[in-house]
């Protein structure tokens, strides 16, 4: 497969995953605002900015409308939902012949829905409807991808983009949450106080994990168990471990087709991270410092990103000719 085509597949799904995640996080926060007291709402959008890795939001104390503009609507903001959908479509357009027409038409539909959104005229309810539309549109696209596209090399690159982005998003989400809502892990059974309890539910909902968590642990949200679920669950599709399993599987499948020294090295990075997550227990990670562990997971994800680019896409010509 052409490197350019693989690259576009990777980015289109990465951007779409990012759009979906951002829309979900923003929607959860909008739902928290009406019932939480002023002291909890103060600095909310700064926290959101941190959880999404948006530095501009972190340094300034922005109001909700300004923040929503940056997070959701402004096409010039590189982190906005609209920008992500536009970028996903741009990449899909480059490989229109390689993806199914169902996929192209769905992404095109989503694009036309979001580019007309004008935040100035929207009420809070409209914001939520907009964000729901994006989540649903992205999920439809991914469903169509799985059911209408050959699960070959191109599809593997789509998997890579989706799950690498997801692992990083969830790691950053939990990391920034832990920084804002300090947890006393020395008392492992303790539940959060009444004020921060809704914020912990919000955390789980931001990763579509609340219902799944309840099925295992009941709605009593214990920080240690929530962290265990988000980081180490082997079955929940938004956990970091689950995501990195998928990344590893995609990489080994691609490497079977395209074996090279460079490919081996990125598989090694992903495999090491996967093994760490498979054989770790949450108490060990807490013992080492959970925030630092999450930061290092994000760095490993970034290393996989760089590695796959060097292995399959932007490799140096001389290196490729040498073997």
């Amino acid at each position, binding site marked *: 497969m052409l490197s350019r085509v693989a690259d576009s597949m990777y980015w289109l799904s990465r951007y779409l995953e990012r759009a979906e995640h951002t829309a979900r996080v923003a929607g959860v926060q909008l739902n928290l605002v009406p019932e939480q007291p002023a002291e909890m709402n103060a600095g909310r959008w700064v926290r959101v900015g941190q959880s999404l890795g948006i530095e501009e939001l972190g340094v300034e104390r922005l109001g909700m409308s300004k923040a929503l503009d940056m997070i959701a609507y402004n096409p010039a903001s590189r982190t906005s939902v609209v920008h992500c959908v536009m970028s996903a479509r741009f990449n899909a357009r480059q490989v229109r012949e390689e993806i199914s027409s169902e996929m192209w038409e769905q992404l095109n539909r989503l694009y036309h829905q979001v580019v007309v959104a004008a935040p100035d005229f929207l009420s809070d309810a409209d914001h939520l409807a907009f964000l729901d539309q994006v989540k649903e549109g992205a999920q439809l696209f991914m469903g169509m991808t799985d059911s209408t596209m050959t699960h070959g*090399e191109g599809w593997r690159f789509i998997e890579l983009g989706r799950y690498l982005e997801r692992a990083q998003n969830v790691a950053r989400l939990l990391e920034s949450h832990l920084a804002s809502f300090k947890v006393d892990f020395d008392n492992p059974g303790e539940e959060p106080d009444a004020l921060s309890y809704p914020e912990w539910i919000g955390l789980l909902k931001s990763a579509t994990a609340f219902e799944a968590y309840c099925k295992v642990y009941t709605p009593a949200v214990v920080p240690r168990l929530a962290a265990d679920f988000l980081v180490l669950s082997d079955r929940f599709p938004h956990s970091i471990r689950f995501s990195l399993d998928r990344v590893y599987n995609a990489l080994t499948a691609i490497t079977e087709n395209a074996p090279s020294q460079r490919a081996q090295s990125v598989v090694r990075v992903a495999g090491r991270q996967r093994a760490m997550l498979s054989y770790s227990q949450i108490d060990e990670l807490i013992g080492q410092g959970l925030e630092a562990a999450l930061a290092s997971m994000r760095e490993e994800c970034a290393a996989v990103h760089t590695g796959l680019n060097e292995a399959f896409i932007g490799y140096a*010509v001389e290196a490729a000719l040498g073997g």
Partner: protein
Amino acid sequence: MSAANTGLKRLSPFKNYTLPDCWDEMFAAPFQVRPHYAALQERMESMAPDEMKRRKQAADLSFLHQGITFTVYGKSEGTERIFPHDLLPRIITAAEWARIEAGLIQRITALNLFLGDIYHEQRILNDKVVPRELVYTCPHFRREMRGVSVPRNAYANVVGTDLVRVEDGSFAVLEDNLRVPSGVSYMLTSRQVMKRIFPALLRECKVRPIDQYSRDLLATLQSLAPGGRVNPTIALLTPGVFNSAYFEHAYLARQMGIELVEGRDLVVHDNVVYMRTTAGLRRVDVIYRRIDDDFTDPLSFRRDSILGVPGLLNAYRAGNITLSNAVGTGVADDKAVYAYVPAIIRYYLDQDPILPNVETFLMTDAKHREHVLARLDKMVVKAVGESGGYGMLIGPQSTAGERDAFRERVLANPRNYIAQPTLKLSAAPCMVDSFEIEPRHVDLRPYVLFGEKVAVAPGGLTRVALRKGSLVVNSSQGGGSKDTWVLND
């Protein structure tokens, strides 16, 4: 004649058809259908009045859903449009086709010999059959190609020659397209649509198939691999999704099962061309390039081009890669060189041209120029290096101001212009927007492949000037197309 076979039936869709002031493809005289169109007429008269309309709408929808569109430049919104397609086929008899086919093969053979000659010995220039200055002043003459040999001495491999049928019913060559002719995907997809709409009629008329085109194109490209390499890797080089013919590029690549590449997918190392794949660099042997000479290599031609591949021309000159069509073929479809093609055919093949040229006046010739400038309102003036219907003056349809502007341009740069008498292109019945049937002018672009073998796809693209009275058939200027049927006798 009885009413039944003169087409005077009460409900005939042709009952209001007025013969045009030129050769009509379907009718020899009012209500007198030409024999090879009789089956079509009968079929259409047997259809309920609304049926044609419904079939037309079904066909348009089918084109839209398949994304058979082209891009209109200079408009930001709605830039993708379907190529207007007329349902009534244009029909050519076996005898007519035999002559066209022989004429095209003769012409392409001679033009390839001409290209090989001017880039090597230049016998034809030394013998003063074609003026040396004419060739050297041609903007598409590539000095870089002097002394460079190409596989099988085949320069123009994929050719689309524009033919017109003039008043006496004979065909003449209007233009040779030896660089990157387009439109063949419309020929192929339009037949697919017609098969669904007129399946019985196609069978009854014994229309020759054209499905083999993609296979023939692939075979032609394979036969041009450097050093006769077997199982060569072939790629189609496109400028990208923003190009007006991107649909065609993607369509042909898919039909042939070859990679569709952009300039940034290719790298040149030690004069060898590779494409970047996820499994590493893969050597490429033949590039079917759908970008102009000027954009192929920023090191050799336009430095500002980001579509091409740095170093490609050196790899080409080193004989490590075949570009098809070859670099520098544009010199042979220059509109001033065109005037010499009959002489070129006689010179290399010692034969009379089977397909005549249209009478052409060179503006570099003082007598010709005087003659033309005195009757600009009756002439068509064309810039020699342009295509797509751009840069031309159609005398009878021009204003005095436009003629004055062209007069000045011609006088300022005579080498850049030629003139031809305004031709009465033949017309064929078309279903117009109101669903009435009216005559519209048509031309014919058959597609010729020239590699190990020469193959002409039976028929080609019939282009239609859909605006009433218009003589311009280019898609960029409001033209459409018709399926072209060549009959088996």
